[in-house]
């Protein structure tokens, strides 16, 4: 997989990553989720927890933590630019928290070419 840096992170997200890494004693990975309920949020797992495959692509590596998205999902979303951030709230699914009552979120900016009117 070639690394296209399509994700960056806010200072708050980088600080949270450092804290969670220290608490968990190991590297982390992120997977963008979609669909029902807690969809549209990034999931944070111990690195290697989520089995990535050819259907996924890596959007970039943030302080040693890879961030993955399903390729079809990325295309449906118009291949946006991602920013990892943290917000108050609880983690969803099986995601690790970004700290006490903090969760990771992604913000996206869709490039003008990403949306092709049918």
């Amino acid at each position, binding site marked *: 997989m070639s690394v296209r840096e399509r994700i960056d992170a806010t200072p708050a997200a980088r600080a949270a990553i450092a804290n969670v890494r220290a608490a968990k004693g190991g590297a982390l990975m992120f*997977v*963008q*989720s*979609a*669909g*029902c*309920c*807690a*969809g*549209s*949020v990034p*999931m944070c797992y111990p690195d290697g*927890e*989520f*089995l990535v495959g050819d259907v996924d692509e890596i959007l970039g590596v943030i302080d040693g933590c890879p961030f993955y998205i*399903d390729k*079809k*999902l990325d295309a*449906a*979303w*118009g291949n*946006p630019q991602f920013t990892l951030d943290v*917000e*108050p*709230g*609880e*983690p*969803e*699914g*099986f*995601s*690790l*928290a970004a700290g006490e009552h903090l*969760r990771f979120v992604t*913000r*996206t900016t*869709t490039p003008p070419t990403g*949306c*092709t*009117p*049918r």
Partner: protein
Amino acid sequence: MQYVAPGRPGSIVTVAPRYENFIGGKWVAPKEGKYRTNLTPATGQPITEVPDSTPADIELALDAAHAAKDAWGEASATDRAAVLNAIADAVEQNKEALAVAESWENGKPVRETLNADIPLVVDHFRYFAAAARSEEGRTTEIDNDTIAYHFREPLGVVGQIIPFNFPLLMAAWKLAPALAAGNCSVMKPASPTPWSILKLLEVIGNVVPAGVINVVNGPGAEIGKALATNPRIAKIGFTGETATGRLIMQYAAQNIIPSTVELGGKSPNIFFNDVMASDDSFLDKAVEGLVLYAFNKGEVCTCPSRALIQADIYEEFMQLALKRIAAIRQGNPLDTETQLGPQVSAQQQEKILSYIDIGRQEGADVLIGGERARLDGEFAGGYFVQPTVLKGDNRMRVFQEEIFGPVLAVTTFTDEADALAIANDTLYGLGAGVWTRDGNRAYRMGRGIKAGRVWTNCYHLYPAGAAFGGYKVSGIGRENHRMMLDHYSQTKNLLVSYSAKPLGLF
């Protein structure tokens, strides 16, 4: 009428300061003694405290379930059906209190819990009682002296992880077939809605043998994973988002156990021009059919969140629909007049608002709503969003992503082929709606749409007996139908020879 909020003087729902896990027929404190506060989204204020469990509590629940599984698995279908019917009766007798508890915890209007959620819970248990009672094995006469008997056997102990949008109905959808097939369950409710299911267990706990139903609350990363990866479960059922869905299947693969996953949708609701051929009750029903995107605040996997309207009726039809949307009453979920309550959590509210912004940036027109709804007084701290309609194009992200809120994306189509192409231009395939007075067209469209459920001239009906589940990334497996007994059973084949003749090979 307005129901008094749970726990307040005069309420029909009592609230203890703290709740425990339900394990082995008893209320069991979490081993590490940690709890967290459960909020009502209507005001943002606490309801009670619930366990913040750890993997040790999942092990306790699995111990209880395994202790119960032989007796429950060997119980006659008559006895199992009697328990399911007793659950249904108990729920029915406590309908109002459960409806109020669920409404207050989730934010869904009590008119919905009174008329949909709770009656459907009752219906599901009765349906699966009947399914268990009327189950028949199949025999195959291989030849005159050789018979293949097929018996259904329980899997044993199953893990079930349910979402926040229908806390009691999703529990019923998963528990009823699992129990009917003779399994014991360890269930993890969704983190935003841990309490109303405990109120359900207060009602049904004493009619179910100890250990058959076990409920453990806590964080997904801890106990959800501990349950899904556990070698002591024989199956895992999950409803939620796609990343967790993939993890569930990954864990199931590692344990070589089956999984069923329901992972959401972006359901098209298609209105052909003939719906306006007459100004009659059917047209009225079709207009309501569009507005059903606001049912349960849009927090439904099958939310009809993409309306496709034939271009030549678009202006006139949308005018009727927008009038209906503008009249939606939003507010206290415990008021039976309220049609739209608060979103389940502040984070869901923020996510929905961010999608409305994305829609604006993409050039979608906001036809109505588009903002946080600001209520006065007690509900000023609630997580309300205005019912919103965005006009745009199916390639826009607001047409492709599940927003899980009262946000409708609307576009037009020219003809049947165009409607089908737009309907299927999505990663998902859970639900769809088709509205037309032409039965042949309805059938063609219904068969052409790649989705597990196509409501035809109706929407958002969830009767037991109609199979529900997804195509494409919406998941694997079906619910709501007796075929679920297959999902929760092993097949035992006895191949029996009634001949005394040797094979003659050795």
